[in-house]
């Protein structure tokens, strides 16, 4: 994996600033409609079979009345050292040359080995054939495969958008502009508070590379479950807590 990382052209990744997240779930809805994810009804949640490529985890901190809600959007971390990849017997999931952990739906036989091995629980299995109400059938995105039952799926960083921008750039003889809104996944574009940033970690001038560089060296940046060595491509920036900082200063 390390050699691949050095030779590859791009390294798509995301920075999530938890200080800005309000838990509004706009990213979840945007993802749902962009990627042809079936509507999650109450029954799906009761069966624990809901599919959400990005989800907002909610944590409560403190005791009433001094209680705080913390939000954390969790999606596929596109690990460079992904635990899901080596366990797939048919190469349905592999790492592409742009640092994306991609899922090939046609190859998948549905062993669910990858889902067990994902420490972030970012992989979802299609237990049923997906169904939409008639009124929503024209809403399906033609650029995204509708997955049949019996296969795994997960966040792709909206690979169809990346492909579209690259195709357009190639046809018009331009280079892919990192700040291009059309390049960003649906969740990033939908976020009203600019919590999510998307870009190329390989390009030193990109927003995400600069943020990662600044924040991971003594700043607020961290990776989820860094200790198991998955080497993820999503950087989280921890919440700035004025009250806690003030308390610490008093103690100091």
């Amino acid at each position: 994996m390390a050699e691949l990382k050095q030779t590859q052209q791009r390294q798509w990744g995301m920075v999530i600033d938890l200080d800005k997240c309000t838990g509004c779930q706009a990213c979840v809805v945007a993802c749902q409609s962009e990627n042809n994810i079936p509507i999650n009804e109450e029954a799906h949640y009761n069966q624990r079979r809901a599919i959400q490529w990005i989800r907002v985890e909610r944590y409560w901190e403190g005791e009433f009345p001094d209680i705080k809600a913390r939000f954390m959007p969790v999606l596929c971390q596109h690990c460079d050292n992904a635990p899901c990849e080596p366990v797939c017997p048919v190469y349905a999931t592999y790492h592409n040359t742009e640092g994306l952990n991609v899922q090939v739906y046609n190859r998948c036989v549905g062993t669910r080995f990858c889902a067990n091995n994902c420490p972030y629980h970012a992989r979802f299995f299609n237990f049923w054939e997906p169904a939409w109400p008639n009124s929503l059938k024209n809403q399906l995105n033609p650029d995204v495969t509708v997955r049949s039952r019996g296969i795994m799926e997960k966040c792709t960083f909206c690979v169809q958008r990346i492909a579209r921008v690259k195709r357009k750039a190639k046809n018009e003889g331009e280079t892919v502009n990192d700040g291009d809104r059309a390049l960003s996944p649906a969740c990033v574009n939908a976020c009203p508070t600019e919590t999510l940033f998307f870009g190329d970690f390989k390009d030193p001038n990109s927003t995400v590379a600069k943020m990662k560089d600044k924040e991971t060296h003594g700043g607020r940046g961290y990776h989820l479950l860094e200790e198991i060595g998955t080497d993820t491509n999503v950087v989280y920036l921890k919440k700035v807590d004025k009250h806690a900082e003030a308390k610490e200063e008093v103690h100091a």
Partner: protein
Amino acid sequence: MQEHVQLNSKEVNDILLKDVLGMPKWWLPAVLFFLVVFLAGGAAFGYMLNKGVGVTGLNRPVMWGFFMVNFVFWIGISHAGIMISAILRLTQAEWRRPLTRAAEVLTVFSLTSALMAAPLVHVGRPWRAALWVFPYDFERGVWPNVRSAFVWDPSAVMTYLTASTLFVIIALLPDLAIIRDRTTGTAHKVYSLLCLGWRGTPRQWKLQAVAGILLSALVLPVFVSVHSIVSWDFAVQVGVEGWHSTIFAPYFIIGAIHSGVSAVATVMVLMVWLYKWQKILTPDHLDAIGRLLIIVATIWFFAFFLEWVFALYTLEDPELALRELQVFKHPWMALFIVFLITAYFFPVPMWMFKKVRRNMFWMFVTTISVNIGMWLERFLIIVLGLARRQAFTFDWGTYHPSMIEILMVIATFAWVMFGMLVFAKVFPLIPLFDIKEGMVGGPHKIKIGRKEIPASIHE
């Protein structure tokens, strides 16, 4: 206590071929019953194929359930064959003789059961499973991922299946020739074909003996590899903390022998009850199996204990959460207690008594109990390993198997019973030639200290 009856060759033939050449009254109803149960499981599978994996009780954290438990269970049972016919053959334990074929046949049918349980019914798109189990998909140029434990799995299981089938066939040849000589008409023609021209010449006997010994030696690595690989389906996963343990391979192997040898004892008692072979399968044999089981069970329990020690040593949250779920949470706690009692604390103290070891009924009860416990053990490891409290999700699952899953699990048991019964009708379930070879070999018992133990001889 002289229970050993000396038989001559003709008596051995008569006793063992009685139900091959004739048909016991209960045979047809029993076989039909198991066939119907198996077909009911097949129908359940058809329903699942039509509707999707949604008809099972699986959910997002618990992605593997009854099918995987059943797969590991049947692979475990299949270790009976290799233990009895390879290990005991190479260590020249005399008492194995009447048990070898039953153990090998049990192995073959439980392996097919395991193959049905995992790659076939367990995956989301079973019609594509062939691309992975028989990985020769030249057209797409996509080769299977050899890093995946699920590619090691079919290779190991297929190797084992091939070896055990060969074992059964080679040991069958002389017996088939005897049946050939005792039948007429179509049956005679079929058995003539099956026995591959066996005439009992010295050269044929030599080749047959060499093939048997070679196969037992060559199959020894499989003895270690099959269940190690099955355990690596779990142990290589960093994402499931409860499974990610180095003790898993030896722990699973010894557990497999524990349940496999117990299953052989169960089958042996059934053979005595159904086919009245008490002159051949004597309490001596049960006694020997009982002694072996005490040791195997205790090593298994030690490995089980070590797994807990390794898990708790680090005091990491996910591990503690899993152990808490296994031992203190309501429905699982009951299963855990039942598992401990049935797998170890009931049978092993029972086997300490010579009277129990030599009693058909009590050996039947204790060995069935072991396999109930071992099934629960796999359930507690696999399902609870996934259902534990975990990071970054509130989907801390629970798991309710659906009727479809339960039916398919029962069907695999019916399949093995069906297979064994049909085999016992067409071929002798106890090797005739092996029994006779044992009779001419030498003393049946030797004295070691104050104990009389079944003798070993050189082949």
